[in-house]
């Protein structure tokens, strides 16, 4: 099975551990990820804030490159997935002039949704060597992955299930909560710190109130927001994992501490306590 892969800018910088875990997980599953050649940034929030035309044109270049490969795209970053989908819909409506040859016919998958399909869940279950028994987690989806449903195609946008299904498949105990898709503030914390912190802190508090020991995310920005806010915190710390990191942990007999080196909130203690890491 082959897929074209659009990593996005974050996976080269702040979330390079996410990128590494994706590589190993897909290798283990026997799926070839072919990186889109010479991809460029999707524009993120800034592009559609300042110029709607750019928010269609920038992802269109990546779509054009992927169409050359002729494979469906899978995007790990929520914002990238959203912009690719948005751009594709706009191209189909032919509202903008785009300098690249794009038909907009290729399927764009969100990585969590792709791995949460029944066939993939079965594949994941087959590869598990060490299930994550006893690890209580809540799944946090963020906003860009599920909303607006007209663009993302999520029908269960109020209570999305993709990460929950994956986390349950690898043996973790998934706790239901109501802040699954509340916004974490994204990049607003850079310019207006108090807004960003108030939003992120609320999500963290609610996650801790449910009794969860860790948060599972799929968006690089959500991870860094939830992780960095705990840097000076005392008391209970709630590590924030990318979902592929947990899959990777379940796939291998002996996990390594090095995989979690990039976390600000150190998860090694928790994992050792649960007997998941030597």
């Amino acid at each position, binding site marked *: 099975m082959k897929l074209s892969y659009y990593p996005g*800018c*974050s996976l*080269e*910088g*702040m979330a*390079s551990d996410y990128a590494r875990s994706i590589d190993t997980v897909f290798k283990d599953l026997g799926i070839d990820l072919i990186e889109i050649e*010479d*991809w*460029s*940034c999707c*524009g*993120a*929030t*800034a*592009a*559609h*804030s*300042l*110029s*709607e*035309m*750019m928010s269609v*044109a*920038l992802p269109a*270049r990546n779509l054009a490159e992927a169409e050359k490969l002729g494979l469906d795209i899978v995007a790990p970053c929520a914002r990238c997935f959203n912009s690719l989908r948005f751009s594709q819909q706009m191209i189909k409506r032919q509202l903008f*002039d785009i*300098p*690249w040859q794009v038909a907009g016919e290729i399927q764009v998958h969100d990585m969590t949704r792709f791995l949460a399909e029944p066939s993939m869940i079965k594949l994941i279950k087959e590869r598990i060597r060490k299930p994550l028994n006893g690890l209580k987690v809540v799944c946090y989806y963020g*906003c*860009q992955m599920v*909303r*607006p*449903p007209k663009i993302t195609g999520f029908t269960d*946008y109020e209570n999305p299930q993709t990460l929950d299904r994956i986390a349950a498949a690898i043996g973790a105990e998934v706790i239901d909560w109501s802040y699954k898709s*509340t*916004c974490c*503030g*994204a*990049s*607003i914390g*850079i*310019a*207006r*710190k108090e*807004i960003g912190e108030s*939003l992120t802190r609320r999500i963290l508090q609610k996650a801790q109130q449910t009794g969860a020991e860790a948060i599972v995310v799929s968006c690089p920005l959500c991870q860094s927001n939830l992780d*960095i806010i705990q*840097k000076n915190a005392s008391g209970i710390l709630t590590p924030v994992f990318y979902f592929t990191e947990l899959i990777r942990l379940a796939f291998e007999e002996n996990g390594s501490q090095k995989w979690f*080196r*990039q*976390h*600000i909130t150190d998860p090694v203690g928790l994992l050792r306590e649960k007997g998941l890491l030597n």
Partner: protein
Amino acid sequence: MLVGHVFQKAKLIRKSLFGECETMYKNLPDQEAAPEPGFRKERKLIGDRGNYFLNRMQGETGVNISACFQCERCTNACPVSHFMDTKPHQVIRYVQLGWREDLLNSSTIWVCLSCEMCTTYCPNEVGVAEIINHLRNMAAHSPITPKERNLAIFHQTFLEELQRFGRVNEFWLMKSYNLKPNILKEKIKTGMLKEELLLGLTLWRKGRLRLAHPRTKAIKEIKEVYRQKRGEIA
């Protein structure tokens, strides 16, 4: 007495003819009572702008703005509505009334996170987030100074970085953002700079910062799109 009455009438007619409606309204007795807190002091005329702005917004965004019945579902769903001066449901009403300047001067359009809560939960499928986003576009292309200056500068910096390298790197983005006028000064004053540098150091130690800037080969094509956007001819 009769002459005085006629004079007053003539004055009123002249005022209404020359468009001094607002001052006329101010002289009405009910306005003299102290306004309740939260009410705008100068009263605006409702419907004096016509449908021009409403039609324009509906045409450009493809959203049926007239369908809004002010149920305030959007404002209740919004995670940042308490940081906004004009609430999301008011934004829709202002568009219907054609109060363009109030909207472009508001902090709402910059504080909005585009999290799409409002659009998703609207019972009438009014795309509130799309409208706010379009207003932000309009504000960015107008001479109006943005009310949330730092947020506007951040978006601008992001696009500039993108235009230079084709991809965005967190370290370089923060560097360029901090070098924008007044940002560094503000940060030194509030002590944010020290905090940020310490955070940067921790991130670097953990191996999360990449100092070398990744680039795309197709940077020329991307710059071309920018030129088109600005209406320049190559």
